[in-house]
């Protein structure tokens, strides 16, 4: 068994009081308190942000940063921009589809796919092929998605977006054949096929960019079971990664392939739990105050945003801002 001295070349210092100016990673034993102490990274935490004026759920995707985000789609034409403090209504989208995938930035966003409920008792609901682009002021039509698709996930930019998972095809009440392994890439004007996934799933979470993405969770083909499988995409092919700590769908993701944060989700109940990913392992971080799934993500592992979504009481417009924990003196235990 390795000892601290074997690993670090020195024994743990025994002191009667905590050092006044410790170095990051330094460990000592406080003999007064009888505790092992370390100067290590603390847990991140979620604080309340501004509340959007329109509560909405069934959001798919991630947009922008903690101080520059965008809420669009999800069963309403209303669009709101976030400035790091409050949400402001801006020009509407032309459509009010739900389950639209939104990606990009506040001034160059993309929304595609989605679900259009039956407008009349006899008219069929349908899966959406529309793509809309936002330039920070107006929404205009982009190249249509190859098929109708809903409950997809996506990541990337307006001119380099990546879609994976989802249910394809026209509406049916039992679309068991709709889960496909097909993925698609957008170049700013049209969609083309990307590398096929190992298996179909939907309501997954994607973070990263078109050529370096991470996918977490979702539902297997047919809508069950919930998944904990994690996959990397390199722009053409998929590889397995260590499993997510919970099996669930509609988890809210943000960040990059090797520095991502995932929060909430339906596991199967709505959860407050959040985890960071450093490219090799998931670590629990501070939890959200409100359990939610199907929300909007954005930002990085140091400063992320989670907004709107589905809570146990229904759709919400509430926002929570995540800040990475700072280096602090912590009591070290077998679990820390």
């Amino acid at each position: 068994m390795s000892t601290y001295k074997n690993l670090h070349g020195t024994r743990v210092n025994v002191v009667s009081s905590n050092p006044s100016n410790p170095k990051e990673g330094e460990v000592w034993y406080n003999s007064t308190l009888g505790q092992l102490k370390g100067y290590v990274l603390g847990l991140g935490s979620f604080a309340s942000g501004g509340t959007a004026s329109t509560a909405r759920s069934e959001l798919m995707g991630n947009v922008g940063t903690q101080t520059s985000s965008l809420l669009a789609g999800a069963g309403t034409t209303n669009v709101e921009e976030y400035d790091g403090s409050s949400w402001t209504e801006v020009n509407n989208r032309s459509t009010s589809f739900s389950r639209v995938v939104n990606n990009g930035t506040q001034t160059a966003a993309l929304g595609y796919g989605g679900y259009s409920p039956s407008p009349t008792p006899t008219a069929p609901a349908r899966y959406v092929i529309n793509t809309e682009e936002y330039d920070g002021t107006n929404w205009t039509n982009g190249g249509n998605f190859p098929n109708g698709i809903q409950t997809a996930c996506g990541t990337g930019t307006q001119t380099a977006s990546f879609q994976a998972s989802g249910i394809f095809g026209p509406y049916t009440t039992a679309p068991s054949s709709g889960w496909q392994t097909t993925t698609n890439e957008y170049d700013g004007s049209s969609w083309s096929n990307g590398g096929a996934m190992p298996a179909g799933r939907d309501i997954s979470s994607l973070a990263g960019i078109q050529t370096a993405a991470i996918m977490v969770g979702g539902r297997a083909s047919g809508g069950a079971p919930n998944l904990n499988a994690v996959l990397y995409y390199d722009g053409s092919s998929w590889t397995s990664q260590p499993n997510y700590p919970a099996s669930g769908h509609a988890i809210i993701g943000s960040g990059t392939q090797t520095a991502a944060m995932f929060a909430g989700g339906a596991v199967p109940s709505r959860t407050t739990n959040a985890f960071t990913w450093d490219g090799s392992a998931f670590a629990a971080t501070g939890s959200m105050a409100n359990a939610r799934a199907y929300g909007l993500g954005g930002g990085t592992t140091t400063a992320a945003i989670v907004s709107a979504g589905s809570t146990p009481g229904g759709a919400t417009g509430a926002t929570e801002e995540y800040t990475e924990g700072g280096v602090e003196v912590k009591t070290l235990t077998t679990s820390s």
Partner: protein
Amino acid sequence: MENFLYGVATNTGKGFFTAEDRRNFFLRGYPANVWVVGNNPKGALWVADRGVFKTKSEAQALVDAEVQAAQAAWDAQTDEEKADLLNIRPSDVTLP
């Protein structure tokens, strides 16, 4: 001493709860603007500053009323609407 305090407070947005609050006490939001807060002096001050205290049973009754209203709205939907794969009937919520 009980582990939690219960209160009703409206989320006013930025600053309603801070990262420091989250480090100082347990905080969890529930339907009907019910908040469950860690029972320590800072948690108690947070509830007192932002809303009104409730007993656990009072808070649970508020949550139940909102969830039951959501369940009734779900039950009133058409069969086609209920068949949608994402349209799950709201579940009961039990406060800790």
